[in-house]
Each structure stands twice: as C-alpha cells, then as structure tokens.
C-alpha cells in the first residue's frame, strides 16, 4: 500500500474516537447551551485547539481529502459556538432603539433646538415677504399651481388623482429621506449645508402658506399636511440638528483633537440618522394614503399627526441608562 495512504488510515484510526466524542459534545452544547457546565466548556475549548491542529495537519498532508473536509466542518462549528459574542454586548435592534438612539438624540438636542428656531424664523420671514410680494409664491409654486389655486384647488389634488397611492407613497418617502440625508450630510461643510436645508425648507413653507392664504386656501393646506406634516418637519429638523452637531464638532473640538471630536459626533449623528429613517416609511404611507383622502375627517388627520409626533418623541427621548448616555 502507498505510504501516504497508510499515513491517512493511521491518522484517521488514531484520532477517530476523539473526533467523534468532540462532535457529540459539540452537538449537545449547540442544542442546549444552558446545560453546558464550566468544566465541559473548558474541555471543549481545549479540544477545539486540538481539532484546529488536526485540521491544519490534514490540510497540509492530505489536501482535498474527506477527512480534511470533516475536520473543517467540525472546526467551523466549534468556532461559531466558542467565539459567539455576549448577547448583552451584542448590537441589537432593541438596544439600538432603547439606548443608543435616545442617547444620540439627547446629545444633539441643543443643535436640533437651534435648527427649530432658524426654521421658525425662516417661515416668518418668507410668509411676510410673500404677503408683501406675491410673485415669490408664484415663482416657487409655478404658474400651473397658481391657476389651480385660482380655481379653488390645491396642486396636491391633481397629483393624488394621477398617481396611485402606493407609488406616490414610495416617491414621497424617497424624497423626504433624500432631504433628511442632505440636511444630515450638509453638516460636514462646518454645518453650513444643514443650515441651508433648514432655511430653504422654512422659506418654501412660509411662501407656500402665504400664497394659499392669499387665495383663502390655507385651511385646505393645513388639512392636507395635518397627518404627516408635524412629524415630517420634526424629522428634517432632527437630521439637520445631527448634521449641525457634526459641523460644530469640526469647528470647535474643545480639548479633543478635531478628528476625535468629529468622529464621535459623526457616530452619534449616524445613529440618529439611522434611527429616523424608518419613520419616513410610515410617513410615506400616511402622506400617500391618508393625507389626500377626502373620506378621512380633518380632525382624524390632525389627531393622527399628533399621535405620530408623540410616538416619535417618546421613542427618541425615552429615559436611558447612565452608561449609555455618556
């Protein structure tokens, strides 16, 4: 018989009992991890190193053999069991929304408040300017929307008639997300991009309200945005606030290096952004199906808008453990 084949048989026979025992113990440990004793775990960990050595040996001396593949499978299975992370340390959806997201929100709350103040000022300024100079609204909304308003019809009605609600819902959610991401990433330009998005959106909203007021249709506009508007605007301000916090860290890193301060702010801002993105999906459905609906009462729309905003604020600013907050 060939010497290599003899070596193969000898290796398999001499180690078979150990491999079978290891495989059996591994199977039991995976089936019922709670039943594993400390001694059993220690023995598995020691034997795992022997399995790795055997696998290395089989791979080097008998490449491509069935024995090598069997040892490889055993080693992979044991690796996945022994190197598993502590579930408490694991990054989970629950931990994200229970601790990490609220911590990021609290850390950047002052920047969000500043964005809210700028937004309100921008609305007030645009409302006044558009009331004095109506062509501002005309330029923003376009001649077609103005013609609709003259007929007593909001431009939103024609959109909801032409596009199916599920499609408009997707388009709305995508558009809102892109505004939020732009506001967020604009913070990299020392906060200027975030401020621009806030002021621009405030200006547009103020001008649009002034124009609809001029045509006596501000009530209809309030009714249309009642269900989705409060949360949508809040989310855009939140994302801009996170962006502004990144810009602030770049401008004023205090006693840390600029890179360290910006890195920490960016991580928190990323957590904040990922935390608000799912809400845009909910808003897309509301804006696509509920807001344009004529069968839903205005009071219901307003109540839904308030409930959505309250739900978000409860999740975003829920109390958190001291360790996570720091």
């Amino acid at each position: 018989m060939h010497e290599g084949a003899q070596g193969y048989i000898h290796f398999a026979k001499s180690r078979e009992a150990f491999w079978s025992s290891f495989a059996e113990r591994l199977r039991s440990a995976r089936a019922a991890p709670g039943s594993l004793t400390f001694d059993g775990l220690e023995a598995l960990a020691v034997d795992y190193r022997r399995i790795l050595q055997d696998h290395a040996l089989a791979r080097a001396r008998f490449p491509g053999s069935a024995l090598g593949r069997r040892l490889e499978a055993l080693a992979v299975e044991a690796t996945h069991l022994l190197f598993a992370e502590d579930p408490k340390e694991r990054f989970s959806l629950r931990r994200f929304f229970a601790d990490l997201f609220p911590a990021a929100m609290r850390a950047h709350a002052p920047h969000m408040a500043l964005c809210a103040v700028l937004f309100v000022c921008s609305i007030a300024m645009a409302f006044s300017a558009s009331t004095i100079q109506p062509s501002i609204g005309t330029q923003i909304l376009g001649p077609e929307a103005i013609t609709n308003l003259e007929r007593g019809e909001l431009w939103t009605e024609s959109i909801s008639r032409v596009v199916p609600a599920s499609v408009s819902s997707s388009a709305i959610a995508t558009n809102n997300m892109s505004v939020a991401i732009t506001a967020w990433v604009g913070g990299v330009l020392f906060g200027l991009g975030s401020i621009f998005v806030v002021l621009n959106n405030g200006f547009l909203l103020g001008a649009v309200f002034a124009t609809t007021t001029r045509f006596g249709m501000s009530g209809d506009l309030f009714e249309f945005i009642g269900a989705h508007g409060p949360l949508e605007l809040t989310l855009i301000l939140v994302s801009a606030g996170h962006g502004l916090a990144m810009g602030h860290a770049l401008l004023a890193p205090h006693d840390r290096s600029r890179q360290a301060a910006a890195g920490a702010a960016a991580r928190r801002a990323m957590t904040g952004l990922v935390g608000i993105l799912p809400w845009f999906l909910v808003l897309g459905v509301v804006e696509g199906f509920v807001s344009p609906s004529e069968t839903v009462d205005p009071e219901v729309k307003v109540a839904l808008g308030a409930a959505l905003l309250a739900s978000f604020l409860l999740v975003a600013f829920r109390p958190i453990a001291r360790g996570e907050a720091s």
Partner: protein
Amino acid sequence: MNITSGLTLGQIFNRAMELFRREFARPALSILLPLALVSGLLSAAMTAVQTQLATNPGLILVFFGALILAGVIGVVGYGALAHMAVGLAAGRETAPADSWRAGLRFRAWGTLMLQGLGVGVGLIFCLLPGMYFGLVWAMALPVVFEEPTFAHSAALSRSHELSRFNPAGGLGNDPRFRIFLIFVVTLATTYLLMGLAQLPLIVAVAVETARSIADGRRDGQFSSFVQWLQVPTSIVTSFIQAAMTLLGNLGTAVVYFDIRGRQEAKDLDSAIDALDAGRNA
C-alpha cells in the same frame, strides 16, 4: 478580526475607501466618464426638446434615441463597475476593457436587469419591499463574477443566502444591516458631492428667480442659459453618481468576500495562524 462576526464595519469602510482612493484613476476615464457623457447627452436631448420642440418636431426622435443609448450603456457600464469592484476587492489586476466585456455578458446585464426589475416592483409597494430586495440581492453581481455556476435568478438566490449568513448573531453582524449602512453612507456622500457640483446651477436659478420676482413676472420659466447649464451639471453629477456607485460596489464586494471566506472556512487559516503564533511565543 473576530472569526465569527468577520470584519467590523469600520474595517469594511476603510478597506473600500483605501481601494477607491488607490484605484480611482483606473476606471475614471474608461468607465465613469463614458457613463457621465451619456447622461449629459440625454440631458442635452431633453433640454433641446424643452426649448426647441415647437420649431423642430424631429427632436423627439433624437430624445428617444438618446434615452435608449443611455439605458443600454448605463446597464452595461454599471455591470462593468461591479466587475471592477469585485476584481479590486479580490486583489486582482482588473483592466477596464475586461470589465466592459464582463458587463456585456448576458449573465451580467441579465442579472442586473432582473435585480432592477424586482427592486423596482418592490419600491412601488410602499418602498419597504424594494429596499429589502435591494439589500438581499446586493451581492448578486459579485456572485455572477466570482461563482460562475450562478446567474440571473440563481445569483439572486445565492446573494439572498449569503446575506443571511450571521453565525455570531446580532444586528451589527448581519450582512443586510452592513450593506444598508454602506448604502446610507454612499448615498449621503453622493448627495454632498452632488450638492457642491450643483452650486453654480443653484446660484443661477436663485438669481433668475430673484430677478423674476423683482420684475413681477409669473411665467415660472428660466432662460435658455440656465436650461443649458443643466447639461454640464448633469455630466458632473452623473460622474459623481457613478464614482459613488463604485465605492458602494467596493464595500459590497468586501462584505461578499468576508462572508464567503467565513462560510467556506477560510477564516480557519487565521485561527490556525493564531494558534501557531501562540505556540511559537
């Protein structure tokens, strides 16, 4: 590296960024620029239709011709970008001509079309299904280029299988979540760079709007200068978009090789090396 959870997100981003910076010049002229120019051609055709259709009805044919050309070159070009990203992530010297050839193959563009169709249909149904399909099928093209037995729907299935490989458990180790974060970061960078590239157009539009308001005009029309300024802006933004697609593809390819390495036990090499190092110490 933890051999059950694989590369960390930071390592994935760093590796993708390093490859992008080091190899950017290679696809810039040969793949990214043609994609940008085709997009510019489409933009020019659209502007021509908007401004001169009344005097020249034949322009509509030019527009549809440009649309078809942009569609074909776009699909093949994005396949070529994916091929280049997979090659670079695998540490191979990848010539742009090889990538274009790979993009031309039916198995590549057919898979890309099928993937696009599935994601598109999913997006119509309130976005979420489309986003999910996009995440689980993100590795379809790396599968097509690296595992020749898979193509089209089989590649989508294989990508779906790889995207669920998470022996360590936890959201942070889930390939779908990692690909989602790569997508968000790439998208955010795209918006930032595109916003900067569009600044001249934004300023021109703002100036014209201010003038219209001052004149009391209400036609809402912009001058032909502003309309034609959209053409170079479109070329630059398309270039940025394609470049960021390459960055996203590199990140996805790094995730793909990380998963395959762990699934096929290549990670054991590192465990064995660690064992040897411990014994030698």
